[in-house]
């Protein structure tokens, strides 16, 4: 494949295949496929699994119908992040939580500990699945060639089951981490099967210019779409309000871990908040770079920053005090020894054109 590999959360992962920019552009304008088997999967099942999910996650699972998924997060009592997750409602008493690679062991232990008071089991199914993400405006056309499932009936953040590449009852979810339309499929993790499906996806996508994509493009795609990455935008030091993820946090539902602290934090007011920055002057703001006010006072840092291949701008997500978070506010980013001007801009930096379904 000619991929450049890197260690990521204990996995040997490809950073890029043909090139980060071309992979990024393929997903924005055509289609790309990612092997995201490093993502973890926790199944919670049992008569009280619903109550357990409500207790351990901040979004309101009562809003989920069978076959539907949503973005949520597992929180510490402090209202900070154990991890962000996608919660899938498989059945009345079955929920699948898709979690991050780097935090897998921590997440599994944390979930097991915190669902103990409920009649349910939490099983780590991470090793049973190979997860492939087929992403881009032409993703549906590629997958349509490989499945009997009617993809047009799967709405964004819903899932179904169908035969994919001859594998019956494969879970097909209209989810992803790119800000683009696309699907994630969950197939058996044995190597011959994974390899065969990967090859068949690439073959089916050939006419649409599909590219295999690595972690590099995955990062720039999610950044353009302002999707959080653990240890960057979210962590055990950052709370929900600061991360600007309040819309996924349902304070009005039944009690959940972290709720009390978030209630208090809301009253006390925020010390910092996540904003989007666009570099105005020449220079690229990157992860960890310091942010200064125009008068030279250190006010925050960049959580993720990179050139944005589709937008062709240098963008960043940064934590700054609310007093500096207004759109248009000018800040300085310390790029190595120089201070380079940047401006607070609306996010997400990139928003895809409306779905054709």
């Amino acid at each position, binding site marked *: 494949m000619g991929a*450049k590999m890197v260690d990521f959360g204990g996995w040997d992962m490809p950073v890029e295949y043909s*090139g*980060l920019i071309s992979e990024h552009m393929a997903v924005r304008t055509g289609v790309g496929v990612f092997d995201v088997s490093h993502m973890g999967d926790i199944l919670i099942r049992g008569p009280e699994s619903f109550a357990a999910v409500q207790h351990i996650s901040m979004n309101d699972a009562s809003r989920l119908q069978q076959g539907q998924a949503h973005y949520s997060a597992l929180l510490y009592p402090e209202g900070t992040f154990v991890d962000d997750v996608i919660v899938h409602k498989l059945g009345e008493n079955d929920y699948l939580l898709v979690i991050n690679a780097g935090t897998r062991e921590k997440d599994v232990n944390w979930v097991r500990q915190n669902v103990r008071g409920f009649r349910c089991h939490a099983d780590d199914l991470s090793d049973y699945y190979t997860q492939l993400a087929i992403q881009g405006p032409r993703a549906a056309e590629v997958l349509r060639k490989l499945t009997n499932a009617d993809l047009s009936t799967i709405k964004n953040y819903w899932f179904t089951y169908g035969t994919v590449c001859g594998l019956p009852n494969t879970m097909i979810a209209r989810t992803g981490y790119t800000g683009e339309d696309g699907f994630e499929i969950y197939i058996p993790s044995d190597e011959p099967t994974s390899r065969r499906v990967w090859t068949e996806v690439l073959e089916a996508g050939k006419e649409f210019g599909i590219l295999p994509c690595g972690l590099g493009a995955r990062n720039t795609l999610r950044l353009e779409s302002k999707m959080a990455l653990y240890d960057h935008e979210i962590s055990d030091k950052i709370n929900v309000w600061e991360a600007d993820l309040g819309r996924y946090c349902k304070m009005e539902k039944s009690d959940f871990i972290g709720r009390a602290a978030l209630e208090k934090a809301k009253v006390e007011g925020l010390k910092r908040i996540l904003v989007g920055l666009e570099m105005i002057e*020449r220079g*690229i703001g*990157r992860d960890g770079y310091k942010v200064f006010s125009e008068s030279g006072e250190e006010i925050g840092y960049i959580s993720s920053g990179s*050139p944005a291949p589709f937008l062709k701008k240098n963008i960043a997500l940064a934590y700054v005090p609310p007093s500096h978070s207004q759109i248009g506010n000018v800040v300085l980013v310390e790029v*190595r020894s120089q201070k380079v001007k940047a401006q607070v801009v609306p996010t997400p930096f990139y928003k895809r054109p409306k779905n054709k379904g």
Partner: protein
Amino acid sequence: MAFPADYRYTREHEWIKVDGNQATIGITDYAQNSLGDIVFVELPKVGDELSAGKTFGSVESVKAVSDLYAPASGKVVAINQDLTTAPEKINSDAHGSWMVRIQLKDGGEVSKLLSAEDYDKFVKEEGGQ
């Protein structure tokens, strides 16, 4: 990959090509390949003094920043302006994309650098190829 035999190389992956008492400097094909898509090059100004082994600029790909280290000392007599508007040229032709031209201070410095053969050996060890 083939490294031109008439260039000399640093362990930081710069090349230098001597032409009389001047020399051009760039980064190797191995370096561009490791960096990936190059989007930004920061170069010194004409008249600046480079000092062997010290940084004189930087090159950035989408995912990484890398310092540029001077293979030899000398005054900058020209910079390749093309690269500031089209840094991707380094990806397509690293050994042809010179960054700066310097007036060599001490030709002896260059002879201490790696030959193409030694550099090739060095990157094979480093890259585990």
